[in-house]
């Protein structure tokens, strides 16, 4: 395990392979403020067209490999004022 994660870190540093994340959303909590979208370092979120129950547009995911992918940095989770969005580490398939 320890070796594995060290390896990952090395990879990370060399930019070859970053950790990957999965983005979760509790749709009806979202108020469509756009903060997660604006501050995602990898620009993987955009405004969706759909309305949630409260009439807001929640974000949607537009990952474009290899660069624009969720790296599980958790910034959207932290910046979201609504406890609506969060990420989990993507287990290697």
């Amino acid at each position, binding site marked *: 395990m320890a070796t594995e994660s060290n390896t990952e870190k090395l990879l990370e540093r060399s930019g070859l392979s970053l950790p990957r994340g999965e*983005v*979760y*959303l509790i749709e009806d909590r979202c108020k469509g403020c756009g903060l997660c979208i*604006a501050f995602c370092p990898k620009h993987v979120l955009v405004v969706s067209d759909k309305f949630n129950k409260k009439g807001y547009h929640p974000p949607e995911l537009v990952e474009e490999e290899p660069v624009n992918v969720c790296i599980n940095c958790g910034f959207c*989770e932290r910046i979201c004022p609504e406890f609506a969005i969060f990420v989990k580490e993507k287990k290697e398939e």
Partner: protein
Amino acid sequence: MSIIKADTHPLDRYLRTERLPHVWCPGCGIGTVLGAYLRAMEKIGMDPEKSIMVSGIGCTGRAAGYVRMDSFHTTHGRAIPFAVGLKAARPDLNVTVFSGDGDLFAIGGNHIIHAARRNANITVVAINNFTYGMTGGQLAPTTPETGITTTSPYGNVESPFNLAGLIAVAGASYVARWTSLHVRRLEKSLEKALKKRGFSFVEVLSQCPTAYGRRNRMRDPVDTLKYFQKYAVVKNHVNPLEGVIEPNKPFVVGEFLDAPEEPTFEDKLWELTKAEFLHTSQAERSEWIIEHRRHLEVLSRIISGKGGEE
């Protein structure tokens, strides 16, 4: 890949989820800061059953209503003395005051400097959104100079407080300032603040798109965060006087103060109840008392005919 639908959030165990979504406007930073607080709590393993949140009145003040802990939404400006009383009575509980700049520094300004002076063992999280959000966007003691609010329609002629600097000089043990953009460092700071024995204070500059941003060219919440990104300068051990914030100029964020630990106010109050003389005989005690001139003072008060006045 698309976003995965979820029903619960990792922080839900700290939240009264039945009350979500909360009252805060879309993009308001209060929720972000509350999230950081809860993450810090989780990180240091603070037991929510033994933790109390006290708020005053204001948008921020509504925070107490969303956390799944014993929580008190008091009166405008009086969260701190309520918390000081509660903490002194129950030093076994973790007490946090979570409130707005107006609540803590306009009407409540006196209490916070006194609580800092006493080194009461509470943590204060102050959300500084430059205005009174709840009442619709009036001037706050944090509104930047020339800022437009409903009660400064021609631009603010007052200078804002330097909250962190003021509390550092008032006597706090830990003082930091961050913004709602600095979510990670804020979280770290909150961990430290919560662990600190003594008065700890974390100021968080935050966006109020509805009541402040809209009137000051920051209609979109993102605008304010971009402003923070542009002007915030991270620094530690800041000289209190350096904490001044001026419009469209760099301002300092970081740890202002992290003082070595000292006995807290509650430590000292409870120590009194254990003072040695309390375990001695009445006779010894009365000697002790005379030694310590208590009786004499009461008497001399009577003798001098000084019953006080006014």
